[in-house]
């Protein structure tokens, strides 16, 4: 097992654990902490996969912006910051469903691309150039989703009358 492999296993375990922790801890502020760690952890995996640009983006957007948004959401909706999520059982049904989904996806294990070599690294410059030429339509669409969400969300959140 190479070092990269070992790192991957470690990071993967951390990702799963933090994800579960984020959902299961009862202190909502702790949840945000776990989520932040989860996002950072994923960014590390992206680095490991030689996707530097994405790793950075993950750190900026997810670990940064999204986490702050979520924290904001929790703070606004809870009178006390350290309020606790009401204990809800795990439920055998949901667990079973999730496990089944997990197992179904795992059946594809024999058909993954053979990782003979290290992941290809792409120059961030090439990626950004492509984003504004070949993949321009995607970015345009992304812009439109943002336009939609911003205009609507602002209106929805805005208090009171016009």
């Amino acid at each position, binding site marked *: 097992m190479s070092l990269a492999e070992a790192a991957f296993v470690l990071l993967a375990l951390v990702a799963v654990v933090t994800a579960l922790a984020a959902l299961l801890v009862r202190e909502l502020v702790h949840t945000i902490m776990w989520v932040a760690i989860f996002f950072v952890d994923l960014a590390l995996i992206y680095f490991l996969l030689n996707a530097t640009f994405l790793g950075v983006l993950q750190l900026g957007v997810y670990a940064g912006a999204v986490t702050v948004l979520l924290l904001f959401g929790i703070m606004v909706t809870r009178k006390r910051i350290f309020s606790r999520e009401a204990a809800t059982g795990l439920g055998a049904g949901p667990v079973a469903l999730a496990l089944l989904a997990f197992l179904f996806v795992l059946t594809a294990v024999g058909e993954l691309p053979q990782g003979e070599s290290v992941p290809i690294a792409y120059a961030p410059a090439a990626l950004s150039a492509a984003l504004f030429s070949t993949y321009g339509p*995607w970015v345009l669409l992304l812009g*439109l989703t943002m336009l939609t969400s911003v205009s*609507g969300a602002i209106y929805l959140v805005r208090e009171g009358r016009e």
Partner: protein
Amino acid sequence: MTDAAGLAATFAPEIVVLAAALLVFLLDVLGVRRLEAVGGVAVAGSGLAFLLVLADLGFAPLAAIRTIGAGAINVAPAAGASPLYFVSSFGLVFQALFLAAAFFVGLASLSRDPHEPGAPIFYGLLSLATLGMLLVALASDLIFLLLAIEITSLATYLLVGYTRRGLRPLEAAMKFYIIGAVSSTLSFFGASLLFGAYGTTDLFRLAAVAGSVGYPVLALLGYGFLVAGLAFKTTLVPFHAWAVDVYDGAPTDVSAFLAGGSKKVGVFAFFLVFLGPVLFVHPGGPGNPFSGAPFDLGPITQLLLGVLAVLTMTVGNVLALLQKEMKRLLAYSSISQAGYMLLGIAVGSPASLAGATFQVLTHVLSKGGAFLVVAGVAGLGVGPLVDDWRGLGSRRPLTSVAFALMLLSLAGVPLTIGFASKFVLFSAVVDARGYFVWLAVAGLLNSALSVFYYARILKVVFLQDPAPAGAVVGGSEPAELPAGGLGYGRAAAIAIATVAIVALGVYPQFALGPIQAAASHFYALGA
């Protein structure tokens, strides 16, 4: 791609709608929030775009202003090029349908209470949602498709809750959002698995690669996730549960748009992903990964969609039978209608494609129209229950007759468009032979079943006398309806829809011709 004018020509309808949306927001920012102004802009935008699309489809009097040359339509992207979108006459047909729905809803909403706030955001989001739908109809790439769908989704989440008041709309928005977000996640996950399996997200390239390497489990899983994600939008059972609550809780005009418009996005996406370039045209492959037998994804998907279609029709109809609330009843009926449309996809012949598309047109006019009537009648003070509609036939005869025609159309009664479309659809399904005949039988039995609840509504509206004052059941029905009418905008929208229902019922060829042509073009793309 190089010629900006050419791009502008290609995207003319989308640009018009986007411009309308931006203009609405601009007016809002400038403080012009009058209903007539913002609504007028949005309605004019969708109307103009509608005409442009019709022009591009080559309708005789409009063809002079067509922006896309006939030669540029129905051309599959060249191998290697990755333009992410293309113009097909089939997509144009759907664009026309989407724009029609948007136009009707926008027009009808011109009659809303002018003092109620939120007109700019309503029309702005409506235009943006429409824009997303238009883009869906252009996609030739999975990610493009999914992102365009998300534009519509985000806009409609917000539309459902835009009144900001009242528990019901916000609860509906919450449910819509959660289920929608999970579904979009599943869709993207599916796309990622397909990307992993075939190394591309371009629909035409996917088809080409699949034709050579076959269907690994990874790809199957990817399609499975896509089915689930798109099924949410199309309200297939068991992905449907949100729809009833959302149609019920949303402002009724928004429900009309959801049922009449945005739901069809899912239908189109199904067409695009599972029919056109991808599956059925390139059957065969190396083999079944489990048994080693000759393996063909086409029949499997057909079976899957067939099962979902029957399940959807049946559950939708059965549950509609017991509904006491008008909007929820229509919502269930809308779910069952989705089953009919899926039937056309499951069969996957040019004929059934045309039939399903025609059925979509029926649904736009009839279900959308019905929700518009419900919204208008609710504005008159009639309660939410079906029983609250007692005796409306004698007090609002014209509205009631229009409503009746819409319901009869949904039930598939002759001389309405609903009959014509079901006829075309079912005959196409039967024509496919094999076990599809049983699908058609299931569809027909379901039609028979659906007549129960439509007839019940008609019975209440026309045959029962208005409840005496004071003996109000459930709703808060005043003894006398207020003198006011539905409003000119709404009346016009309902009238247009009704006329279309009858006219296309008597002479369906007018719509059927272009639809058939578009369907066969679409089918020819992958050949």
